[in-house]
């Protein structure tokens, strides 16, 4: 990969990719987070954790030495989130 290619890849990962991943993680949270005594924890924490869902991928993308590995982790996490969300459409 050229130096410019690495820079572009890092910008994409730390920029739009981190934001989109944060949204996917937030959307997927209601499907795995425990519902709690009042049946609302999975909804509240989905929204509450959004800043963390962005900050962790963003920092990881900036610090990552191996961009191919960072990309693979982003893709895998995003895919798992999409599969969880797709459950909703299967259930309805």
């Amino acid at each position, binding site marked *: 990969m050229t130096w410019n290619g690495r820079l572009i890849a890092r910008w994409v990962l730390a920029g739009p990719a981190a934001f989109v991943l944060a949204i996917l993680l937030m959307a997927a949270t209601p499907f795995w987070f425990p519902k709690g*005594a*009042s049946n609302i924890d999975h909804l509240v924490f989905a929204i*509450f954790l959004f800043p963390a869902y962005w900050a962790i991928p963003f920092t990881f993308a900036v610090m990552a030495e191996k961009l191919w590995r960072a990309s693979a982790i982003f893709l895998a996490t995003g895919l798992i989130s999409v599969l969880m969300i797709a459950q909703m459409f299967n259930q309805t």
Partner: protein
Amino acid sequence: MSIANKAQSKRLLAVHGWSAVILGLFLYVVVLTGSVAVLSHEIGLWSGGGHGHHNVLEHPLHDRIVELVDPLDPAYHEEVSLFQNAAGSVFLFPHGHETTDEGSFVEKGVRYVLDPVSLEILQREEGTRSDFAPDHRSALDRFIVDLHVRLHAPNPWGLFATGILGFVMLSAAISGIILHKHLIKDLFVAPRLSGLLLNRRDRHILAGSWSLPFSFILAFTGAFFSFAGTIGLPIVAMAAFGGDQVKAFEAVRGTPAIEDERPAPIYDLDAMLAESKERVGSTPQFLTISNWGRADAKLTVFHGPAEGKIQGSNHVYNAATGAYEGVKPLFGEKPSLGSAVFAWVGPLHFGNFAGLMSKAIWVALGLATCYVTLTGLQLWTQRRHESAVWRSMSRAIPIVGYGTPLGLLGAAFAFFASYPGPNPAYWTAVGFIAASIASIIMGLTIRERTQLSRSYQGVLAAGLVLLPILRVTLAEGLWWPQLISQGSVIIITMDLLMLVCGLGCLAMVLGITFERAVAPRPAKQPLMQPAE
């Protein structure tokens, strides 16, 4: 020990620095207005002049509320809320929850603005919350809060902007922790005077290190507040409720399982409020009645935090029978982890859990964060001092640094000058813009930096000292003897705060400062060759 190698540190520094260069001054405006907005309730009370001290929830109101709500469209009986703002205006808002064609969650109903003593209708509007005109008496504190929350940009763009700024602050805090290898060792090293660059670095790092925990907390909670309604609720609604935001909102808030649509008149509200006051030991702050006119109507009364606690409590009554049903958590019908965690978010961000004591601390925390932002920008531009472009850009730091408080001062002046008139909200905004433009002109015309700073400080000093006088003379506010007889300590405290801040600015003009400044070194002169 550092967790980042050289290349990683370089990238982190680039992110830390460039995000601050591009967005740091906007972040400063948000944080400074946030620090002032911590006192928005006190500012509302103070700018109202002392006339709004009559607490509507301590007086009979059942008959009047029934008279106003009963004849309305049943769609507006879904929820009736009553609250009184700091300026004393009473808002009664019977409304229903709907989803717009675009899928946004809205509250639609009739909003009454009532006189706090006679409960006479001062204003009546029908529509959604965003349609309603602002309360004239509260124009100044609303202006400051809206500037902080959404930079006065239309929803959702303003909230997106402040949310992104929250992310910038969060990333700056995280990158700052990773970059600063000797965080603990440098905690007690005062800024050195051996050079301007070293001094700027030390000032930024010292302030940044000590304020790290709260920078992180304020950034996280601020970003949460900005994104919760604009992105959070729609996304969760789409994922878990097929896009129905009303359903999502009601699931989170908690709706009782048992419905009973049989008509039933509302029980004596005054009796229920009196019972709540005796039970909790404090006057309620606001109330909501759900399912007005039905057998399953509920009255929820909100009380402020008890002594030693940080969150208030919601007490629920059966609004048809008057029976007390217990305490309702913030979310859901039963206490849960989600409700407990969320109950900390508000107090952590607003600092309003222990009256003026906690608010004063939170103002100081906000100002410390402003100091970190400005010193960081000063450090960045000082490092690039050899470049004429960066030297010019560094001028933006005092222009915005002093210009924002001057803008707020201009807003206050314009508010007091226009308040008895019909449109103080408009003139408050005009005052802010005019004062900001004047600050920019000053910044561009006064070339010498120390003279520029002293000029800004002088104008601030004069303006702050004049404010209490304007409050009394222009806006028909009460003077101290009348306020003392009413027990309105807060307004006197605010007047004194303005005077102390004004005197503080005057001290800066006279050169009396907390820290010694290092004189800037002139730009490099060309080497003089000795005559042959």
